[in-house]
C-alpha cells in the first residue's frame, strides 16, 4: 500500500487558529459580522479538541476495517491517476451528502451530529464543535464501499480531510454571498447558514459537503432568504454549557425514551429526531408543515407530556 502522511486537518490547524483570531478581531473592530459568546466559544473549541482525542482512540478500528475491505477490492485504482482523484472527489462528496443527510434524518445518527448544531452562534469556532461519539454510530461504514471499489485507504482519508477543511471556512456570517456561479456549484457560507438555522423553512436542508449540486439533485436545497434571517441552534436549544451534557445529552435522551417505551424502542432509535409513539412531539417535517400551513397541522400543535426532542 502506498503510504501517505498528509492529514489536511492537522495541516490546516494553524489556519483555523489564525482565522478565528481574525474573525474575532475584525468583529471587534466592526469590520466583520460575527458574534462570539465566551462560554459558547469555550464549549465549541473544547468539543473540537475532544473530538480529536476521540478520533485517535477510535481511529484504529476504522483504519483496520477500511484496510480489510480494501484487501478485498474489486479494482486496483492508482493514486497517481488524475481520473482517480476526480472520481474520489465526486464519490466521497456524495458519500458525505448521504452521511450528513442520515445524520439529520435518523435519530441514531443525530445523537452524535446534534453536537455540531447545538451552538446558537454561527462563527468559525462553530465549525470545530464536533462530536465525540461519531465512531460509535458506525456512519464511517458508508465510506467502506470506496475502499471495496479499490480506492486506497490513504486516498479516501486524504479526500475526507480535504472535505472537512473545505467545510471549515463556510461557518461564518462574515461572508455574505459568493459569485453566482460559485453559489450554484459549491457549498458556501450562505448555503451552510441555512443548514445551521432553526427556522422551520430551513430545517433539514443543504446537507452538502463541498458541492451543493447534491442538494439540488436530491431535492434538499434551500437558498438563504433575505426576508427570513437565520436563527441558529436547535429547535429546542440547550440550556447549559456543561460540556458533558452537551456531548451526551441526546444519547441519554434516546436511551431514556427507548427504555421507557420498549415496545416503541425502534421508533425512538431509528425514527426521525422528534418522533414519538403518541405524536406528542414534533419532527422537522411536522414543524415545516405547520409553519407553511398552520391549519393543516393543528392550530395548537401537540401537547407533549415530556420535553421535546431537538431536531435542527
Amino acid at each position: 500500500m502506498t503510504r501517505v502522511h498528509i492529514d489536511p486537518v492537522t495541516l490546516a490547524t494553524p489556519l483555523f487558529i489564525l482565522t478565528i483570531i481574525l474573525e474575532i478581531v475584525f468583529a471587534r473592530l466592526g469590520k466583520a459580522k460575527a458574534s462570539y459568546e465566551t462560554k459558547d466559544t469555550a464549549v465549541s473549541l473544547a468539543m473540537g479538541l475532544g473530538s480529536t482525542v476521540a478520533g485517535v482512540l477510535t481511529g484504529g478500528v476504522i483504519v483496520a476495517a477500511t484496510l480489510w475491505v480494501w484487501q478485498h477490492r474489486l479494482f486496483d485504482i492508482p493514486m497517481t491517476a488524475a481520473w482517480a482523484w476526480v472520481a474520489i472527489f465526486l464519490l466521497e462528496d456524495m458519500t458525505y451528502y448521504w452521511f450528513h443527510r442520515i445524520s439529520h434524518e435518523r435519530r441514531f445518527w443525530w445523537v452524535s451530529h446534534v453536537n455540531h448544531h447545538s451552538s446558537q452562534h454561527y462563527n468559525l469556532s462553530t465549525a470545530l464543535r464536533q462530536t465525540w461519539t461519531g465512531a460509535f454510530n458506525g456512519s464511517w461504514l458508508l465510506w467502506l464501499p470506496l475502499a471495496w471499489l479499490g480506492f486506497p485507504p490513504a486516498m479516501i482519508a486524504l479526500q475526507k480531510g480535504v472535505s472537512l477543511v473545505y467545510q471549515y471556512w463556510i461557518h461564518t456570517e462574515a461572508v455574505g454571498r459568493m459569485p453566482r456561479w460559485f453559489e450554484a456549484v459549491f457549498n458556501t457560507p450562505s448555503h451552510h447558514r441555512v443548514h445551521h438555522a432553526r427556522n422551520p423553512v430551513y430545517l433539514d436542508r443543504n446537507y452538502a459537503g463541498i458541492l451543493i449540486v447534491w442538494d439540488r439533485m436530491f431535492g434538499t436545497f434551500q437558498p438563504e432568504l433575505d426576508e427570513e434571517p437565520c436563527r441558529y441552534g436547535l429547535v429546542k436549544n440547550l440550556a447549559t454549557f456543561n460540556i458533558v451534557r452537551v456531548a451526551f445529552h441526546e444519547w441519554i435522551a434516546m436511551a431514556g425514551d427507548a427504555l421507557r417505551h420498549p415496545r416503541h424502542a425502534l421508533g425512538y432509535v431509528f425514527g426521525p429526531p422528534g418522533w414519538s409513539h403518541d405524536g406528542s412531539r414534533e419532527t422537522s417535517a411536522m414543524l415545516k408543515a405547520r409553519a407553511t400551513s398552520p391549519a393543516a397541522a393543528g392550530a395548537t400543535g401537540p401537547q407533549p407530556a415530556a420535553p421535546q426532542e431537538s431536531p435542527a
Partner: protein
Amino acid sequence: MNAGFFVQLGASAAAVGALVALAAWAKIARPVSPLDEHKAREMLAEEFPGRRIDAVWVASDGAGALARSGGLALVLCRVGDGFAARQIPWAQAIAASFRDGRLRLNLADVAAPTAVIALPAWPPKDLAA
C-alpha cells in the same frame, strides 16, 4: 499514541485557552436586552407557535419568563447571550421550589436541567389551581 500526539494536544489546548480569552476580551457577544412582557410574548409565540398564552410572568432581572398555557408551563431562560425554551406540566411549575425570590424549575431534560427565574412571589394565587 506517541509523545508527538501529547505535544500536539497540549499545544491545541493552549490555543483553545488563548482563543477563549480573546473572545472574552473582544466582548462581541450578541447584545441581549432584558425581557419585558411584550418581548417575552413575542419569543413565546416563536418558540411555541399556535399556543394560547393565559398569563406571563417575566423575571425581575429580565433573564427569563414563565407562561401558563392550559395545563402547561412554558419556560424561557437565558443561556449566554441567547435563550432556551422548554415546557413542563403546570402542576410541576406550581410545585417548584421558591426561595429568596428565585423560582427553581426542574425542566426534566438532560439538555436543560433547570431554569431559575427571579420573581417577587410564587405561586400566583389566582392561577395556582
